């Protein structure tokens, strides 16, 4: 009996186990299947709320009241606090950098009675030895920075390309106050100054330096430190503190008068990864950089001036030639020294540890284009993410010329899709709605590519077909062809053929349910011209400068095929990255405007309102016409757009009918107006896009924005999942402790990421630089791969040039998947032959 009972219970227990397993599977499998099959965003909704204070935001993150804060901090206390809370994590960015600018006017001024030492390039160059950048980064910035010597960003691709030159210059100009003092003394003596009681004097008066020190950030401490150094070498320093509002009119707006100022703490920002910084020399060191008086006072050495100009004009034929010119320009820049580069900020962007999103190396989380596609909770799909931000809804949203604030743009980007998207770690453009592109370019142009979606086609000449469109007749409302405008024929420097996704017009939908159509694309082309042309009903003088820039280089466009969409774009503008050329061409055929996405039907309402002088797309026109600046999301604009919606629906309106009538059918128009009316009725606004999130609700006074996942977004959620964190390489060098002069030596270099070997296919190169005991570069070469490691084999010719003493081997690892190069050093003793 007992046995029977026992036996009868066994199957029951087994049934329970099976049942439990089935329940577990039923719970888990759909979740994983859902993740597999889910399209668009990972999370269901985003709630954006304002939190102006960073410390308060960290408290809210800790309390899980918000899950990510779209603002960074360089306060070491906040960084440490985030580090102490296990529930929090952070990302870093590298876009902002500090320097000291010198006034180069002089050396004599005030009728020859006063002296400006910074008029002498050698004294400016000596500032590089005088300043201890390590002190600035470690002490003044609390470790939240990177030392910087050169006018290129250390986190951007040019630095990786020029790493050996950059590293050599950094070592040459490392902190050496004695050398700085010697150079300054030589030059001051040459200028006729004398040292009296430890102070430099000129014609009986102290050599005084008025130092403008910004007070809003670390520049105050940096300015004080630099001023102290200048006092230490004998100058009399007058520190003048102030905010941008106080100091900018002096150094930026006023004349470059050394009687008023001689040095200023400066700061610059890049919100996107700039893959080509060849123009930086022109911008920072020559009168061509900016029209302000300070720039007009720059007098670079003629060779440097020519080099900077050629680099800015891309006057080179190969990438190798460009890199050689860049290396030469870097050397010139330090010797010119109108700027002493000091440090790059490395701020932290906090979030909950369980939240994942792609953060941009330059722009952080809010500047990332990929955050809407990647934001999610670790291990689960769906849910709501609450995002804190210092401000939102700062200015009216309209796609043509609405808010340009990053606080708004970051959420506008969540509602728009793009033809191509930038890599947050390399700045390279990846295809999103594009299958492939062919870039035809004149053979003499230095164009190269990295990614496979672009094909390079160097050709001797590019002739623009007579049927391509090149301009617009605002009165007749039709495009003008190249044949009409240039009967003699026209050439271009590049021609890009973009192949969009095969099912583009079936897969991509606007948030109101309307399928994307060629009308949306053609309206973008019309608006490119129409707003800047005087005969137009929506002519806006503020659009003219940008249009002139475009028109000067633009050579035509053509639609080769409508389904699938294949287009041609002709221009004289070119970039060294073929991906950027292709991306620019693709963007010209994608209905995302400067400030957001726009469909032909919601933009048509704005066009009608502007033509009726009730609203204006641009702030400038709104002010000059004394009307409201158009907002598609709230405010007095909505009632006006409502009227135009009712009228358009009644008329079944098609804008620019003489041209768009060929691309938009009456049926499409009817569906669009019905969809938009439904959308407006349900959500209270006119903002639609094709992005992964739709704008669900806006509460302007409360400053709350609610975004919902767009269920009909075509791509799988997993598409951009590989961009959570930059794959920074960790480098370790091992080798002999001693090396004999003239003898061979080998060092092993291990490159890893997260403890695992870095995939060799993702490493562009591993370069070694050999420095002797006097910090002179003795040799450099690429390391060779030997199994899992890379080997720096120092030939006898290299060690032959060493001198006995402490030498070192510097290793630079350049990755293909992240712009930041990694460094490592191995020190060793050189023994006599």
């Amino acid at each position, binding site marked *: 009996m007992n046995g029977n009972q026992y036996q009868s219970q066994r199957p029951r227990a087994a049934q329970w186990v099976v049942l439990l397993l089935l329940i577990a599977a039923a719970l888990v499998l759909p979740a994983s299947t859902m993740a597999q099959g889910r399209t668009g965003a990972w999370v269901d909704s985003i709630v954006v709320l304002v939190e102006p204070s960073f410390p308060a935001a960290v*408290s809210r993150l800790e309390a899980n009241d918000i899950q990510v804060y779209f603002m960074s901090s360089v306060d070491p206390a906040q960084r440490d606090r985030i580090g102490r809370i296990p529930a929090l994590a952070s990302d870093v960015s590298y876009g902002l950098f500090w320097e000291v600018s010198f006034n180069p006017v002089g050396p004599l001024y005030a009728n020859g009675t006063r002296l400006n030492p910074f008029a002498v390039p050698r004294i400016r160059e000596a500032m590089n030895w005088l300043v201890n950048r390590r002190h600035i980064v470690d002490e003044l910035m609390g470790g939240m920075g990177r030392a910087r010597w050169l006018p290129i960003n250390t986190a951007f691709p040019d630095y990786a390309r020029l790493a050996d030159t950059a590293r050599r210059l950094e070592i040459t100009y490392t902190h050496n106050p004695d050398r700085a003092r010697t150079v300054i003394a030589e030059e001051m003596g040459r200028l006729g100054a004398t040292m009296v009681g430890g102070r430099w004097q000129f014609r009986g008066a102290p050599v005084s330096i008025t130092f403008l020190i910004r007070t809003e950030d670390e520049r105050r401490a940096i300015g004080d430190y630099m001023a102290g150094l200048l006092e230490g070498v004998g100058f009399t320093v007058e520190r003048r503190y102030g905010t941008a509002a106080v100091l900018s*009119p002096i150094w930026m707006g006023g004349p470059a008068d050394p009687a008023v100022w001689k040095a200023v703490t400066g700061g610059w920002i890049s919100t996107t990864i700039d893959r080509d910084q060849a123009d930086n020399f*022109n911008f920072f060191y020559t009168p061509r950089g900016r029209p302000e008086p300070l720039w007009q006072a720059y007098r670079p050495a003629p060779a440097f001036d020519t080099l900077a100009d050629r680099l800015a004009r891309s006057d080179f034929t190969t990438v190798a030639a460009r890199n050689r010119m860049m290396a030469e320009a870097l050397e010139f820049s330090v010797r010119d020294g109108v700027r002493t580069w000091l440090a790059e900020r490395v701020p932290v962007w906090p979030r909950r540890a369980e939240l994942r999103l792609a953060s941009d190396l330059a722009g952080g989380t809010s500047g990332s284009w990929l955050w809407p596609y990647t934001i999610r909770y670790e291990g689960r799909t769906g849910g709501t993410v609450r995002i804190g931000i210092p401000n939102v809804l700062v200015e009216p949203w309209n796609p043509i010329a609405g808010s340009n604030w990053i606080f708004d743009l970051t959420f506008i980007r969540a509602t728009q899709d793009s033809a191509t998207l930038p890599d947050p770690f390399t700045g390279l453009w990846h295809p999103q709605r594009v299958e492939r592109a062919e870039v035809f370019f004149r053979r003499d142009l230095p164009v190269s590519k990295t990614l496979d979606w672009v094909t390079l086609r160097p050709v001797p000449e590019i002739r623009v077909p007579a049927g391509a469109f090149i301009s617009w007749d605002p009165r007749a409302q039709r495009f003008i062809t190249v044949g009409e405008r240039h009967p003699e024929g026209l050439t271009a420097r590049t021609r890009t053929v973009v192949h969009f996704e095969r099912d583009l017009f079936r897969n991509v939908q606007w948030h109101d349910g309307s399928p994307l159509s060629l009308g949306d694309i053609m309206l973008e082309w019309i608006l490119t011209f129409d707003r800047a042309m005087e005969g137009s009903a929506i002519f806006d003088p503020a659009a003219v400068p940008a249009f002139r820039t*475009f028109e*000067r280089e633009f050579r035509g466009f053509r639609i080769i095929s409508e389904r699938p969409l294949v287009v041609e774009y002709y221009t004289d503008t070119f970039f060294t990255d073929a991906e950027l050329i292709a991306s620019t061409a693709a963007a010209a055929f994608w209905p995302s405007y400067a400030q957001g996405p726009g469909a032909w039907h919601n933009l048509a309402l704005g066009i009608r309102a502007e033509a009726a002088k009730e609203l204006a797309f641009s702030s*400038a026109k709104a002010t000059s016409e004394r009307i409201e600046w158009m907002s598609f999301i709230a405010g007095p604009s909505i009632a006006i757009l409502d009227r135009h919606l009712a009228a358009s629906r009644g008329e079944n309106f098609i804008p620019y009918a003489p041209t768009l009538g060929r691309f938009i059918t009456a049926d499409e128009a009817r569906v669009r107006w019905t969809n938009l009316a439904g959308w407006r009725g349900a959500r209270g606004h006119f903002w639609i896009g094709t992005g992964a999130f739709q704008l669900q609700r806006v509460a302007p006074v409360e400053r*709350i924005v609610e975004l919902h996942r767009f269920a009909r977004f075509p791509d799988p959620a997993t598409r951009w999942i590989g961009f959570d964190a930059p794959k920074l390489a960790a480098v370790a060098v091992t080798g002999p402790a001693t090396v004999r002069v003239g003898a061979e030596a080998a060092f092993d270099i291990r490159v890893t990421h997260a403890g695992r070997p870095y995939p060799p296919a993702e490493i562009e190169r591993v370069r070694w630089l050999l420095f002797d005991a006097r910090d002179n570069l003795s040799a450099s070469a690429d390391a060779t791969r030997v199994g899992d490691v890379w080997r720096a084999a120092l030939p006898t010719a290299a060690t032959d040039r060493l001198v006995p003493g402490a030498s070192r081997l510097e290793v630079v690892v350049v990755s293909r998947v992240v712009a930041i190069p990694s460094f490592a050093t191995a020190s060793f003793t050189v023994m006599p032959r």
Partner: protein
Amino acid sequence: MTEATPPPALRRPASSPVVRVLTYSATRLFALFLTVVVGIYLTVLIANMGGHVDLIKRTEVREAVGTAVGMDPVMMALPVEERHRRIAELVAIEEERLGLHRPFFERSVYFTRDALMLRLGFAERMTSDAGSRLVRNIILERLPPTLLLFVSAQILLFVTSVLWALALSRGYGSTMDRIVIALAPTSAAPAWFYGIFLILIFAVVLGVLPFGGMVQAPPPEHPVAYALSVLRHMVLPMTALFLASIFLAVYQWRTFFLIFSSEDYVEVAKAKGLSSRALERRYILRPTLPTIITSFALSMIVAWQGAIILETVFNWPGLGRTLFTAIGHFDTAVIVGITIIYAYLLAVTVFLLDIIYALVDPRVKVGMEGEQ
């Protein structure tokens, strides 16, 4: 010896009360208007640093345009001269938009004239929360949250302090009286200071009240739920405002009432056996009514301007932050708009108080005779 009386010819004829009131009102209104004109022009001058702000704005425009151009790869690909020409065009457009193409003096006069006529016009840089450039909308949008928070707090503070002070003035020297006196210095700390601690205790540690904002995010759709959420979000800022002022306010009113409580006529009334409530109502509150009304009216006007730091700490969308932002942006139109409304409110209140005094206090006379 005869009594020195003025000759009949020199004696001023007694005017009728209506004429006296009208004359007085006209004079008073003119004086107040003049004060407003001077105040507004001074505001325009100060907000623009006597015209120096033009230089700051010009520099900001150049910097902004230069930075935008620097980030535009197409613009950077232009030849230098062409690029500088574009920059100059963009700068000119923005300077014209900001009115910098006209001399500051001319603009300052227009600003003052338009403000006095309540033609608030368009803001230079700011927009309302909903995106309107009209100064009227910028102010009107922020007015309800401002009044809701600050008027509620002021009314609560005023009623509590006056009633509490009256009670204390009866119990002079009691334990509660001594506690209030001891706590009066706590009002040296501003409301935002208490706000930070309240947020730390009730939002961070206990998690029972929100960190800030006017309503939960996302806002409830149902009006009742919305109102309840707003009330919940008002608890901490109102408490901060209340705590920062209550003890000093009670102490001040209590001292004020004590002075009146020791008047001879109160003692006489007390000797006659009047109840303490009757004493308060007829012999203490009645003569102090002008002061109480003045204090209440002015506290209501002060609520108009909000409180910059408190609003920032609690992330409350009030007019204080709007004014602060306007000052930061040198947006003269908004600064003048907020100031002129405050100035007019103050002037009208002062004028009305004159009339109310005459109504509530029989000792006050209006006009020339009253002055004699």
